[in-house]
């Protein structure tokens, strides 16, 4: 089985074909307002007053997003980026993105008398890039060219018994095909890290899984707050989840059964293929951005929603360039939020399908979406702000 994707110069395959303008802000937004097919991200953090570690994370996100196979061409402008820090210089970002062989253009504000001229130049370049991208035709690729990332949220007991196991089946199929699959949310493996570490490809990776779990546990304690007042979150409890361990054991079901090849930092690209654990934050405004920067072309949000699902119209991707496939196994959630949810696996709870059957159905849907079929939230003209996962205090 295979999908129809956009060939990129470095041998990767995109499932979308957009032009990306970075960093986010006034200039990028105005260019994208004018040009069909140009996209950006909305982030508030420019890197100004951030530690070197955090500035490097911001740079990694911007470079990774530019390198993403869903992106055909990139414009990097020199305005609103962190005050001239070397790692955030537009030329430095552009040079790394250009390693993929895709067109990258820097629009330096120094070349133009004012910001309106920068925007004008950006519009001209973006229109040309969009037209150039439109000449690229989709062609067949093996599923091993897919790279996916998952978050589970608004978790309830349907997540652990059906929604996440079906996602886990998809993860196994992608890994068997030779692709990449990412899962993360470090607070949500507390209580299940002993099971994950047994699935590590090496002792070193096993130790790394335990280390990042301990680190987040210590960080939670050092806040002086009982993490159990943060996680499980109130909607989890209202959905039948009682303890953090219970939430974690359900959460890791989404990672399937394959060996874990490594532990990655937020927005870090893997060195090889297969399943990776990402030491990231659970927020939907942050996690998908990180997966996209690590090279994911398709992301998944598996929801429970049994507790406190208030928003029945769910959001499109905040990354701009990677669609989100929304899934649920909760019949009530599917009824209430079906306008946004692409896939229902509650059939497993109802006894109508096995996990394998539902998983195969999801795998088939993935290949359709990878070949160009739109997800439900891709039809919504809205973009949430995205939040880079930063670890240090601002100064």
């Amino acid at each position, binding site marked *: 089985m295979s999908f129809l994707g956009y060939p990129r110069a470095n041998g990767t395959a995109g499932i979308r074909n957009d032009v990306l303008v970075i960093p986010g802000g006034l200039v990028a937004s105005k260019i994208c307002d004018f040009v069909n097919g140009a996209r950006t991200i909305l982030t508030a953090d420019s890197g100004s007053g951030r530690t070197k570690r955090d500035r490097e994370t911001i740079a990694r996100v911007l470079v990774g997003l530019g390198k993403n196979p869903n992106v055909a061409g990139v414009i990097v402008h020199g305005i609103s980026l962190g005050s001239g820090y070397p790692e955030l210089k537009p030329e430095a970002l552009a040079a790394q993105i250009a390693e993929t062989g895709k067109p990258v253009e820097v629009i330096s504000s120094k070349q133009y008398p004012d910001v309106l001229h920068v925007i004008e130049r950006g519009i001209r370049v973006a229109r040309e890039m969009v037209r150039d991208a439109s000449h690229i035709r989709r062609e067949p690729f093996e599923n091993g060219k897919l790279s996916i990332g998952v978050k589970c949220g608004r978790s309830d007991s349907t997540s652990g018994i059906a929604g996440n196991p079906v996602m886990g089946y998809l993860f196994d199929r992608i890994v068997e095909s030779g692709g990449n699959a990412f899962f993360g949310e470090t607070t949500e493996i507390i209580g299940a890290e002993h099971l994950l570490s047994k699935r590590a490809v090496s002792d070193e990776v096993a130790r790394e899984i335990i280390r990042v779990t301990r680190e987040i546990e210590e960080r939670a304690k050092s806040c002086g*707050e009982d993490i159990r007042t943060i996680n499980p979150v109130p909607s989890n409890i209202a959905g*039948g989840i009682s303890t953090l361990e219970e939430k974690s054991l359900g959460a890791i079901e989404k990672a399937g059964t394959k060996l874990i090849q490594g532990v990655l930092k937020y927005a870090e690209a893997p060195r090889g293929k297969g399943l990776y654990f990402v030491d990231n934050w659970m927020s939907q405004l942050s996690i998908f951005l990180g997966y996209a920067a690590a090279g994911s072309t398709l992301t998944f949000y598996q929801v429970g929603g049994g507790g406190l699902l208030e928003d029945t119209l769910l959001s499109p991707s905040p990354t701009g360039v990677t669609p989100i496939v929304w899934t649920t196994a909760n019949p009530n959630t599917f009824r209430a939020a079906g306008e946004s949810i692409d896939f229902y696996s509650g059939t497993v709870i109802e006894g109508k399908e096995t996990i394998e059957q539902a998983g195969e159905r999801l795998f088939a849907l993935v290949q359709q979406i990878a070949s160009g079929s739109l997800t439900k939230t891709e039809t919504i003209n809205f973009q949430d702000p995205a939040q880079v996962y930063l670890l240090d205090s601002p100064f």
Partner: protein
Amino acid sequence: MSGKRALALNPKDNIAVAVENIQAAEEITVQTRGGESRSIRAVQNIPFGFKVALENIPEGQFVFKYGETIGRASRDIKIGEEVHIHNIKGVRVQGKGEKGERS
């Protein structure tokens, strides 16, 4: 097969998840992954998605789901009773905040 359905995910589990709304005194058919099923009686309402005890669980004993511990009973739990935050507690990441002593 009569009774309302609940799923036990692992043979080691001492709780099951209700996959229908269950009323007090109703019979529950507990299906274990792997095929076998047995019956217990609900002693109170168990809403869809919530847990029911499959045996008496004395205070301090571990509660198992997915074959793994999800916490300890914080009071004696009877077979057929709902199992949730009022009668079990997680054992990980215990900081301040237990029993209302938040700083």
